[in-house]
């Protein structure tokens, strides 16, 4: 018997008991709905984290950090100069797998436009820093090699800094203005783009009113609280050398710019495939500059992924549990309905057998029917899943916008189909085993 007829027969049966069929679908509806929602949330977290990681430098960015040296090596501690500019030179020379490197000197300074003043962390860096931190220039240019060589008094500032210091100018128009760092005048040569998370951008595009903004602030749900891009938006970057001669040399009279301890040393690995080799090269180079003292380490972005995994795991566990239980209940519901429906139709099955249906035709008919119920439940479940996701974003806007992928829809429908087959097997076997004569006699 062809599938199409089974389908027609099955649908006819389902629609002749609309309410009963609908009830039997509920488990599947809920199961698929929560599957969709779970996958939307975890998918959102993953996508959000990835996008965010890309923007803060990606997996390719590595911080070279200080490391506590073990007790028995304490005596040698003095041998190592710690992290210095020499390290950056050494990496540049001896680690070809590292594409970019930049040392960094940090200092909290009062920053002013003449009118507005704010206290910010100012960093002295190399031109490579642009690539390492994945900064994007909105207007003007970044610090160049010449700026570093000559110790120019130029600055590249974050979008928020520009907007705060010059409230009457568009951030892009602040290029060329003079900015005072601890009263020393610097020329703004570049402004970065505004970095935003999805939900902040959405909130801005939807035009959240000031009132709403305040309300959120009071509730503590202001989206900018803990904004991971805050650092980038409030960056004030100047050439490394300028930083040293203007602001640091006084504090370190015995040091040259080559030997002054630096606050940060960041590198960018050229190709993730050779990540470990690249770190190996860096380690070798630094072992020389640190005179064999093991006082440095690498801070990679893997812990970000661990955090993401953790956040996803809890969602996945609770969502998966709800989905699993619902699908199980759904499967039992369908099995139950199919058994009832078969008991009602013993005579029909007998008649079909009498005019030539084989046992497997009956089997197929029942399976097709249970799969149809499950698939309908699945489709309704997808709609419900969309609803749940909408509701969740309204009630509890999280860091990452949940999103429903085509794959997650396909997977959920697939689950529904599998549940349909599994829950149909037992009734279908029962039905196909009915003895035609007994079935015909059944009242």
């Amino acid at each position, binding site marked *: *018997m*062809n599938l*199409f*007829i089974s389908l027609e027969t099955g649908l*006819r*049966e389902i629609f*002749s008991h609309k309410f009963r069929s609908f009830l039997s679908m509920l488990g599947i509806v809920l199961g698929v709905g929560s599957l969709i929602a779970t996958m939307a949330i975890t998918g959102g977290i993953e996508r959000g984290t990835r996008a965010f990681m890309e923007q803060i430098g990606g997996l390719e960015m590595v911080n070279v950090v200080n490391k506590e040296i073990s007790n028995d090596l304490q005596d040698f501690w003095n041998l190592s100069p710690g992290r210095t500019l020499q390290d950056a030179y050494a990496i540049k020379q001896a680690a070809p797998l590292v594409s970019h490197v930049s040392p960094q000197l940090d200092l909290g300074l009062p920053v002013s436009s003449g009118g507005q003043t704010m206290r910010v962390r100012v960093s002295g860096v190399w031109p490579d820093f642009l690539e390492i931190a994945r900064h994007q220039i909105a207007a003007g240019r970044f610090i160049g090699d010449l700026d570093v060589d000559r110790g120019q008094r130029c600055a590249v500032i974050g979008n928020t800094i520009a907007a705060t210091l010059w409230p009457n100018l568009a951030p892009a128009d602040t290029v060329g203005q003079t900015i005072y760092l601890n009263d020393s005048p610097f020329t703004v040569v570049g402004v970065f783009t505004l970095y935003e998370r999805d939900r902040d951008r959405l909130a801005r595009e939807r035009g959240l009113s000031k009132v709403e903004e305040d309300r959120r602030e009071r509730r503590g749900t202001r989206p900018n609280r803990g904004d991971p891009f805050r650092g980038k938006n409030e960056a004030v970057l100047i050439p490394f050398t300028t930083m040293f001669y203007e602001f640091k040399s006084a504090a370190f009279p015995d040091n040259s710019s080559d030997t002054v301890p630096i606050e940060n040393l960041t590198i960018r690995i050229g190709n993730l495939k050779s990540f470990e080799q690249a770190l190996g090269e860096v380690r070798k180079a630094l072992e020389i500059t640190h005179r064999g003292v093991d006082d440095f380490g690498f801070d990679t972005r893997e812990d970000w992924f661990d955090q993401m995994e953790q956040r996803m795991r809890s969602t996945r566990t609770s969502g998966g549990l709800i989905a699993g239980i619902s699908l199980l209940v759904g499967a039992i519901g369908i099995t139950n309905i199919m058994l009832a429906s078969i008991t009602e139709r013993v*005579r*029909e099955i*007998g*008649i*079909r*057998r*009498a*005019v*030539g*249906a*084989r*046992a*497997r*035709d009956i089997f197929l008919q029942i399976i097709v029917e249970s799969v149809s119920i499950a698939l309908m439940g699945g489709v309704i479940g997808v709609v419900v899943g969309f609803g749940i996701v909408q509701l969740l974003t309204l009630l509890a806007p999280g860091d990452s916008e949940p999103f429903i992928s085509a794959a997650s829809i396909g997977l959920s429908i697939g689950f529904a189909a599998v549940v349909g087959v599994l829950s149909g097997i037992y009734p279908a076997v029962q039905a196909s085993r009915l003895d*035609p*004569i007994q079935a*015909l006699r059944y009242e």
Partner: protein
Amino acid sequence: MALVLLQDVKKYYFLGGQEIRALDGVNLRIDEGEFVAITGPSGSGKSTLMHLLGCLDTPTAGRMEICGHDLSQATSDQLSLVRNREIGFVFQSFNLLSRLNVVENVEVPLIYSGVPGRKRREKAESLVRRVGLEQRMRNRPTQLSGGQCQRVAIARALVNDPRILFGDEPTGNLDSHTGELILHMFTELHQAGRTVVLVTHDPDVAAVTHRVIEIRDGRVQREYDPRVAA
């Protein structure tokens, strides 16, 4: 040519350790073109025999051939195939599917022989016309009289053009006038060349056939030609 060939066929039922010999050594041969009535007292084994002939069951022992198929040890699928292609079966209680309309009921056997949709519909409709129900094609069985239901059942039995047509008390649920009309249809089918085998209690039904087989205690007790014996 023999369409039905039974040699020492036995059908035993076992109920609570007790052996019930519903058929106890039946020998029977029915040739193409015959018009046969099977009669006998209640409990003699007529229905049991009919179920074997109708390929709804297999014998406990003995040899059984239907339309050239040896079905003594047939599998369920073989029986289904023979039921579908070679045999038409008309029941006392019509056995129509109440959710389907007249044409759809007649179509059912064609579904299981894999006839494609459009052809199935055409064939079913032509048979519904042949039994004179063209006005009631889209009616459900519940909207039909008993006689009309039995005509639908006959149309369904004939839709795969079977070589042999069985009826188990086909007039048993009908009033005498309607019963006569149905019986007349069987007579006409026989005259058109179809092999017809009816189980009946009714001597009037048996009388129109050409060969009466009397069953008693699971055996063929007597055979006669009612046209001659009278």
